[in-house]
């Protein structure tokens, strides 16, 4: 047996050791939930049969390409497409004049034009679309479009954008918004603190770098506009496109092809809206569009670079008393989801630590850089790097062990987090304890193979609010029906972007009804067929859509029990459904199969169908204090530990050991939970050590994988996963979620270990060999 096999087997064995179920769940032996069932879509993906957006193309179709802005900030004086229209093979050239609706989109604020009419704000802004018989012709025709600009002074730094005389990027000015949090009396408490540490930390612009580039097709048949492009929230995309293009909602259908990763990068509208526009103008033609890697990177939003000014005060014994934090958030050119990201930074400002007095200001600043929006971690990832960095500096100043300092201040069940929300069941301590035990914290060794190598150990703890929160409507819906051939069809608009939603919903439905997994047929992500299930984001799909599926499945099961009771002449509450058969446990010989239930149900006139909605409320955070009794539906906890070597001659880092513990409530599919943890940690390694979108004058200097460096198999150690299962009362079978926390924990753990190794903190991300070397030299 190979080493990796051994480690993985140990991890899976560890699941059972560490799994703790509440008595309510222990009463029932799970048959499908909790099992590492093979991915339902894996065979198609491994054989190449699965169709992603770009796989829907045909030579027979038309191809569209977009003309981008020539300046990062300019007025458009005129657009002349006449020459482009004359190019042989060009079908049409479209500009803002061809857009019938509002011509505006944007997830929270509609501030971005589909095709710019009078102003461009970054180099990814689109001005015109060419549709031609092939891509090459479309590309050649783009160069024939004549656009006259009046260039405006462009703003590439927040300092420049905040100057009083700075040109306004948007009519209302360059401040997107401010978010404030006031808890207790931070200034007084800080003044009375025994020890204060203070620092400024700068995070970087990060690209999602999903492999499956934006691509898809659209067609308008005169009655229905059908768009097949991968997104993260089909129904919101349908709303935005319908409004922007002036089309009634019921005439727009969005179908999700297979999706090769998303990570927040498919939340903002991309090519869907251009494809829709082109198709509406060219009835009965199929239009295709795809971005190159360079265009994808140039146009798409990024993770917000955030500059965090953090001041942390404590008593001599290490008890935290106050935090004063200011976040300057580079919004780039458009709002995107920025307001929500800023709010997440604020509400997670002290992470898993109890701090009675907190003062937070978050300022979002427009610049002429790429818009910044959603990416895995969503403001909480940058924040964790700051609060954990400050905990390390505090430990050094106090002369205290950094694990001991953290343990002392962790929130426990019944404590308040940053928003004032009381967390009834906090497992930060359990998670932290698990990683400290695994890495044998007390006996860590600093002996290295060579004098120029220094070893360091880092830790981090995550406390993460799940779902949208803040009173924003957050709902998932599901529909279950039993078909005549005895299959449970399951409908949801939740999108599987690779994380494994297809198994999550199917395993929950199978478990709830009592059928084998192969009797469930998931039908996902088609606005014409499937009910709205919110976005695949905010680590919410397992909790929200999983719950909706469980509710619909439970209702369908009741109908099946009614039918079985009537047919078998038994009492309904004695009917069990197990392995796809209904029977009374006392008289198990009399049974009905799913097919028989379907036939009998039909004969008796039942639809054998159930729908559900899961919509737990949250409460808005107070605009002045940022406090809310229920800012989020629930919180997730996790903890990481990292052991690494820094080469003091080159600044290079080698991660020797990585341990990640996450309390997922219930692992619906443990294999996929481990996949999410290992994948999240790897993306976190990228953010911590190598990934950075380098911008100069609004232009990306590294728009491709040659210069935008992503982790390869060489950069990733064995990631030892510890999965805790403390059930959440609101989640399906107690499940919480796992999408984002593994990424959030990684950056801070690695930076903590580098600081431990070299004795000076790296304040700017990513911690490249050069930055580490400079930190050592300073």
């Amino acid at each position: 047996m190979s080493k990796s096999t051994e480690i993985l087997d140990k991890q899976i064995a560890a699941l059972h050791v560490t799994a703790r179920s509440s008595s309510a769940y222990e009463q029932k032996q799970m048959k499908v939930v909790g099992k590492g069932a093979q991915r339902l879509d894996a065979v198609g993906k491994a054989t190449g049969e699965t169709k992603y957006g770009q796989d829907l193309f045909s030579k027979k179709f038309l191809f569209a390409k977009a003309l981008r802005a020539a300046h990062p900030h300019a007025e458009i004086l005129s657009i002349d497409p006449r020459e482009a229209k004359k190019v042989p093979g060009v079908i049409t050239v479209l500009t803002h004049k061809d857009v019938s609706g509002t011509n505006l989109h944007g997830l929270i604020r509609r501030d971005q034009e589909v095709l710019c009419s009078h102003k461009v704000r970054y180099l990814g802004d689109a001005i015109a679309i060419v549709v031609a018989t092939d891509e090459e012709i479309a590309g050649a025709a783009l160069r024939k479009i004549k656009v006259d600009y009046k260039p405006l002074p462009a703003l590439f730094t927040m300092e420049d954008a905040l100057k009083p005389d700075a040109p306004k990027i948007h009519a209302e000015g360059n401040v997107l918004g401010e978010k404030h949090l006031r808890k207790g009396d931070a200034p007084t408490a800080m003044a009375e603190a025994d020890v204060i540490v203070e620092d400024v930390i700068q995070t970087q612009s990060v690209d999602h770098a999903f492999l499956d580039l934006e691509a898809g097709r659209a067609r308008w048949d005169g009655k229905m506009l059908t768009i097949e492009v991968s997104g993260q929230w089909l129904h919101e995309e349908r709303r935005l496109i319908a409004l922007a293009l002036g089309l009634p909602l019921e005439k727009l259908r969005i179908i999700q092809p297979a999706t090769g990763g998303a990570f927040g990068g498919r939340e903002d509208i991309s090519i869907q809206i251009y494809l829709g526009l082109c198709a509406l103008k060219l009835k009965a033609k199929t239009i295709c569009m795809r971005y190159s890697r360079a265009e994808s990177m140039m146009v798409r939003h990024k993770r917000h670079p955030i500059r965090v000014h953090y001041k942390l005060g404590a008593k001599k014994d290490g008890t935290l008393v106050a935090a004063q934090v200011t976040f300057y958030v580079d919004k780039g050119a458009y709002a995107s989801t920025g307001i929500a990201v800023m709010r997440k930074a604020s509400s997670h400002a002290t992470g898993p630590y109890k701090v009675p007095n907190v003062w937070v200001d978050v300022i979002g600043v427009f610049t002429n850089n790429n818009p910044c929006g959603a990416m895995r971690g969503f403001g909480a990832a940058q924040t964790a790097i700051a609060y954990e960095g400050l905990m390390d500096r505090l430990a050094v100043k106090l002369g205290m062990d950094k694990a001991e300092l953290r343990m002392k201040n962790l929130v426990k069940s019944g404590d308040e987090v940053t928003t004032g929300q009381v967390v009834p069941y906090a497992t930060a301590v359990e998670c932290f304890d698990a990683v400290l035990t695994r890495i044998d914290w007390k006996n860590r060794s600093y002996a290295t193979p060579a004098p120029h190598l220094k070893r360091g150990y880092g830790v981090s703890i995550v406390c993460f609010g799940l779902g949208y929160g803040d009173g924003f409507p957050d709902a998932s819906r599901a529909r279950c029906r039993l078909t005549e051939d005895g299959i449970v069809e399951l409908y949801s608009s939740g999108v599987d972007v690779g994380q494994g939603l297809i198994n999550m919903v199917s395993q929950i439905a199978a478990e709830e009804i009592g059928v084998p997994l192969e009797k469930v047929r998931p039908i996902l992500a088609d606005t014409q067929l499937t009910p709205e299930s919110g976005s695949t984001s905010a680590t919410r799909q397992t909790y929200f859509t999983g719950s909706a599926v469980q509710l619909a499945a439970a209702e369908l099961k009741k109908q099946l029990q009614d039918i079985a009771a009537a047919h078998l002449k038994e009492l309904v509450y004695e009917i069990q459904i197990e392995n796809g058969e209904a029977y009374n446990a006392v008289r198990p010989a009399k049974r009905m199969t799913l097919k028989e239930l379907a036939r009998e149900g039909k004969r008796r006139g039942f639809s054998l169908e159930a729908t559900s909605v899961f919509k737990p409320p949250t409460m808005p955070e107070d605009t002045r204090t940022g406090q809310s009794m229920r800012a989020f539906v629930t919180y997730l906890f996790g903890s990481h530990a990292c052991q690494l070597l820094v080469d003091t001659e080159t600044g290079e880092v080698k991660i020797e050991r990585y341990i990640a513990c996450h309390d997922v409530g219930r692992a619906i599919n443990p294999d996929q939970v481990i996949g999410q943890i290992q994948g999240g940690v790897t993306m976190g390694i990228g953010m911590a050590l190598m990934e950075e979108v380098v911008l100069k004058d609004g232009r990306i200097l590294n728009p491709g994988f040659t210069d935008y460096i992503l982790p390869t198999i060489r950069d990733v150690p064995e990631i030892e996963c510890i999965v805790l299962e403390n059930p959440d009362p609101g989640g399906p079978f107690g499940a919480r979620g796992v999408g984002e926390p593994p990424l959030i924990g990684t950056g801070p753990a690695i930076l903590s270990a580098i600081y431990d190794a070299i004795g000076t903190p790296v304040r700017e991300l990513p911690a490249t060999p050069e930055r580490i070397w400079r930190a050592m030299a300073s």
Partner: protein
Amino acid sequence: MWPLKFKLNGKRMSRKVKPTQTLLDFLRLEMDLTGTKGACEEGECGSCYVLVDGKPMNSCMMLAPQVQDREVVTIEGLAKGRKLDVIQRKFIECGAVQCGYCTPGLIMAAKALLAENPHPTREEFLVGIEGNICRCTGYNKIMRACESAADEMGLKK
């Protein structure tokens, strides 16, 4: 147009191709073999690997005429009917498939590696698949799938 003759997944082919078309686009648009994926388009991520005379090649970096008189195997050429190749099966069993976009390229890389080197050490495995980028899995399960395939093929010690 270039008169291209080559062998594709075991069958002799003869096609007129645009000399500037990449092998990747040719396979996907002209031959309708969409299992081979394009992702970085500059030879950095291995998503578009196909075997050319048994060697893994970035099909985004080759022009179609370059496979003149050579043998090309794509992901579609691995399974025998419904019977999956052992590497495909191990990727599925080990949970090495998430979004699946890197999967065909990785499977082709592993296929080439194990065909050439029946007894790869861990370092040799790394050399064989370090040219492939996966954004979802964190690689641990990919390594496990490769090693497990080698074990099952009875090739490893």
